[in-house]
């Protein structure tokens, strides 16, 4: 099943062995997708293939990362894989929502593709509704992480050094003291995040981490920078100059608030 989902865009066979995969979860505010866009456009990654599946809504457009008129053309599809072989980095971008009744199937296909490709670790960039935080989550930074046991085995020290906060488990029935009810993991608005994490933990034992941000709908560009800088603290994709990273905003982010306004207004 998974071998049919990934289709190479080159004549060469693509090898992902021991690569780090960074991918977004299609979630509230699309922060993960925006962050992935920043990585692709800044590191100038090259496309190596597509995830071609009926679980995603069809969409097509010209080059979203074009820098000049000459490279403006070039068709881009709903889900594409980019790599930087010298960095051992692969990035999956998903540009469309997942068809709702097929989200479980998509998750399973992803997990089996990740497994068969031999990625050394997978980082899922995600987000969650800020308004659904509980009291303990309201304090401090809006950034959280989750890591599967097999990832913790190799990265526990690094994560400790970074001083990141793990996503809190919330009580099943808030305000009710019930010894039987175990606290649960909740990622409201996170799309496939929770399912992907639990699948990777339980059945497959994949080395996978989730980085997520609590946010609210609006202009989420600052959120994307926050999340990608957070990721950079760990993976060092970009050298930090002072304390500011120079991420490159892709051209496809233009006209976020619609077309130009009629000059007759003034």
């Amino acid at each position, binding site marked *: 099943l998974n071998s049919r989902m990934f289709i190479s865009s080159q004549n060469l066979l693509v090898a992902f062995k021991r690569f780090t995969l960074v991918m977004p979860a299609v979630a509230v505010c699309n922060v993960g997708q925006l962050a992935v866009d920043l990585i692709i456009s800044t590191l100038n990654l090259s496309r190596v293939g597509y995830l071609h*599946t*009926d679980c995603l809504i*069809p*969409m*097509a*457009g010209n*080059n979203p990362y074009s820098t000049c008129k000459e490279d403006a053309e070039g068709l881009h599809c709903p889900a594409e894989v980019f790599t930087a072989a010298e960095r051992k980095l692969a990035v999956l971008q998903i540009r469309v929502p997942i068809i709702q009744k097929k989200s479980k199937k998509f998750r399973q296909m992803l997990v089996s593709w990740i497994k068969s490709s031999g990625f050394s670790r997978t980082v899922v960039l995600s987000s969650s509704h800020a308004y*659904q935080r509980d009291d303990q989550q309201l304090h401090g930074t809006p950034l959280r992480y989750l890591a599967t046991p097999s990832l913790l085995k190799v990265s526990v020290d690094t994560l400790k050094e970074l001083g990141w906060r793990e996503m809190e488990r919330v009580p099943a029935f808030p305000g009710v003291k019930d010894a039987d009810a175990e606290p649960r993991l909740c990622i*409201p608005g996170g799309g496939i995040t929770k399912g992907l994490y639990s699948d990777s933990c339980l059945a497959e034992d994949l080395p996978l981490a989730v980085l997520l941000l609590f946010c609210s709908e609006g202009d989420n560009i600052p959120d994307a920078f926050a999340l990608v800088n957070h990721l950079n603290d760990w993976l060092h994709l970009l050298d930090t100059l002072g304390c500011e990273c120079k991420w490159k905003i892709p051209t496809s982010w*233009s006209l976020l608030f619609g077309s130009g306004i009629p000059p007759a207004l003034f």
Partner: protein
Amino acid sequence: MATFFGEVLSVYSRAVDEDDEDLDENEEDEQIRRELDEKRTVQLQWSTDVTESLRSGNKLLCSDFVLAVGHNAASFLSAYVLASAKWDAVGRALVWNERSRAATGQTSEESACVFYRHKDTPAVLICHVTCYVAEDQQFQWTEKVFDCLQPRELTVTVLSDGSVADYKTADYLCSSSAPFLRALHTSAFSDQPVCQPLEQPNIVTGLPAAVLNHCQVHRIAAVVYQCYSDVIGPDSVTMETYKPTLTKLGKSIQVNSSPQTDALRKFVRATEIQSNLYI
């Protein structure tokens, strides 16, 4: 949670749970879902000779596949190409979804997605799609149709209706600029499109996007001409905007370059009757 009759049911709070998690369904729900999925399956019906050749493993030899999505694109092809009476209807696709009308609209549904083949040049296939193809059906429609076509030497041209309200540009669009065409093509398409490329951040969605995705991934030459119009519904000015797209096709089939205005008017009038807003 207590019901109207006072029984206490164990229901978890929606406020702290995933809205899209897969719940344990009972058997009846599952059966309803399965039947709905079955009903939503796209079905292709070909004429007897095409069915025969497909069954014996011969895919349709096709050099040009022209797909018109939307009423304006379809009417344009009807007036400029299909009017020459050299075309046979060879098949149709049946698509059922939430926007399909009940039994009364049966005839219109059946003619909503028809394939035509040229009598003298059978390598040219034309398809009209005037019905709504739902998001979960677009991928399937494309896979099924392209599964019947020989992919070698195939060029796909899609004419697609769009609204100027969906077009984003930094300059303000004055009303006289619409309708206009924009092109989006796959990497395998080596020809020069007849109009400007679609600029970022504009995108193509729906069935034309599904066709582009399929052709890009399978390295088939394909181009989508998206017509941005400011008129809702069939309109002769919008139809004529598609005219330059046929220059390439004109080599393989005869194109009626100037159909009588009556022919176009017929398509426009068919929908006008339904509107009595200003009578």
